[in-house]
């Protein structure tokens, strides 16, 4: 079968991406694929905007669907934006945390549970960073341990990784 021989027009960023792809060794493949899948799914979840149309809502992981419906009043804000914005109130962050916890406890697949866990702790971290407020009953040490572990995951998006790092530097007042 004949190849089309058609060239793709690539910009600098796309070219660099492909060159970096060539750097990974074969031995890294199995783990990198699993991590990359988690990263992509989490990034997709964080991109979810409100309000959400029916088709998209049905396609989202279940844990995000109900949360999205409850947060409809925050039109135009994605979950990622809510977690990283200083403007998001602690009340909203508590809602995000509670939903993530519920979904994590009922998740059927390990990947879904890990994503829910990331969102759960991200909400707690956001409250610490933006409001200097602790919205969790976990001890400070347990939270530090969780943030440390999560920020080191290869699949953690940069915005959440930064959030976890910043949360570790905060002293808190409890709600």
């Amino acid at each position: 079968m004949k190849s089309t021989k058609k060239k793709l027009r690539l910009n600098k960023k796309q070219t660099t991406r492909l060159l970096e792809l060539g750097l990974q060794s074969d031995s890294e493949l199995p783990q990198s694929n699993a991590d990359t899948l988690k990263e992509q799914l989490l990034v997709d979840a964080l991109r979810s905007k409100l309000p959400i149309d029916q088709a998209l809502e049905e396609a989202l992981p279940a844990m995000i669907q109900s949360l999205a419906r409850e947060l409809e009043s925050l039109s135009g804000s994605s979950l990622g934006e809510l977690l990283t914005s200083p403007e998001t109130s602690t009340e909203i962050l508590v809602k995000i945390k509670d939903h993530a916890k519920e979904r994590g406890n009922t998740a059927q697949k390990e990947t879904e549970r890990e994503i829910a866990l990331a969102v759960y702790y991200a909400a707690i971290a956001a409250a610490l960073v933006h409001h200097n407020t602790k919205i969790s009953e976990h001890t400070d040490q347990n939270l530090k341990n969780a943030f440390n572990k999560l920020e080191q995951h290869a699949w953690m998006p940069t915005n959440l990784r930064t959030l976890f790092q910043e949360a570790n530097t905060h002293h808190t007042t409890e709600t």
Partner: protein
Amino acid sequence: MPKRKDYNQSWMAEESEFDTTQWTKILGASLSQSVMGELYRKYRKPVYLYLRGRRFSDDAARDLIQAFFTDKVLGRQLFKKADPKKGKFRTFLLTSIRNYAIDIQRSQKPTVSLDDEDHDRPARIGDPAVAFNRAWAMQLIQETLQELEAECRQQDKQTHWELFRQWLLDPDQNSEKTDMTALCTQLHIKTPAQAYTMIFRLKDRFRAIFRGRLRSQGCTETEVDQEIRELLGVF
């Protein structure tokens, strides 16, 4: 400046079916026209950009490419000096064209036409090696993508290719413009997780093909990583 000759240019126009350029083919007993055509097709752009970076005009650079490939390559002067044990083919070719250009400029110094008014000049005059290496990298990537696409078609994986192509051409990988769910709908893929798995498989194949092409150019496994880092450095 070599006078433009009436070269037998059939090998320049010939489309070669060879997908790799290997030291063994180049250094083989008979340098066939198809291999010559392959060499010219693959490397004329990096060589051209290098010459333009050395301030040869567009016309002069085109003449020199013909002369270089005909006299040096076809004439086997170039590859008589080649030793695959001494490194990568890219480095060898870059050194060869550099020496060739220096010889030309030294012999023709008063009359070398500079590209004073030529609008086709490279963006970074003064870095001809950078221009050469960028073009080299782009050529390598395009060949890899073409091989990957052909492989997908042969294996009836057109959907895999189209998904990979759209992922690759995504203007900004982390932007909110990318909607994997919509893409799944468009391509009749059941879930985003399945789509990402398909992309991963093609990323694995791209990696394997790309690294294989570098090895065929004389790189050891360790040198492949070094080569890629050097190419990354010019972007």
